[in-house]
């Protein structure tokens, strides 16, 4: 599964993307976030403030309860500020 990070979340994680294999028991976006934070201090710092984290799966905005597939492209980023 390809995970992308943007803006200050990317800076805190330290890399723009990671390739991970979805472990057993991780089915939703929320569970993926918890797993990433448990396994990586940088991710823990980047995703700690949950209400500042937005998620897209396959380039569509989704909620934390969205169910994942192994082939999904998942992106974490703060609220957008374009326009």
């Amino acid at each position, binding site marked *: 599964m390809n995970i992308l990070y943007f803006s200050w979340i990317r800076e805190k994680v330290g890399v723009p993307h990671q390739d991970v294999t979805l472990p057993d028991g991780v089915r939703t976006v929320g569970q993926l976030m918890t797993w990433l934070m448990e396994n990586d201090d940088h991710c823990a710092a980047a995703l700690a403030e949950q209400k500042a984290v937005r998620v897209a799966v396959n*380039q*569509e905005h989704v909620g934390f309860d969205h169910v994942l597939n192994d082939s999904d492209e998942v*992106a974490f*980023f703060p*609220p957008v500020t374009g*326009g």
Partner: protein
Amino acid sequence: MIRVQKEDFDISSEIDALVGEDRGIGGICSFMGTVRDMADGASIDSMTLEHYTGMTEKALSGIEEEANNRWNLSATLIIHRYGELYPGDRIVLVVTASPHREEAFMACQFLMDWLKTKAPFWKREEGEAGSKWVDARAADDLATDRWRQ
């Protein structure tokens, strides 16, 4: 039509190309966003726009389609720039053309409001206050909310 680009744009040429030979158009509304030289009382030297290639195009096409479903529009255009920009530079252009002015105005505002809260762009400002990521405005969420049915 949507375009995500590093390059500047010219509003006259864009409108002319968009309207073409369509003589049913009676009103053309446009909005252009520009880089300001101040933010929260501190001067700005430059701004960098990061975006999520692929999702940006998808998000802009999606909101453009939604506007065309809601209003009778003859043509629509969204151009959004990315990369490094300076005070006075153009960032975004939205153009809506319609037989009637009310629909052109509504659609143009709708596109700007949705773009502000749905298109995956992030602004980083460099200036007097150092280098910082711009915070999302609560007012932008409220502006988007008013379009929910």
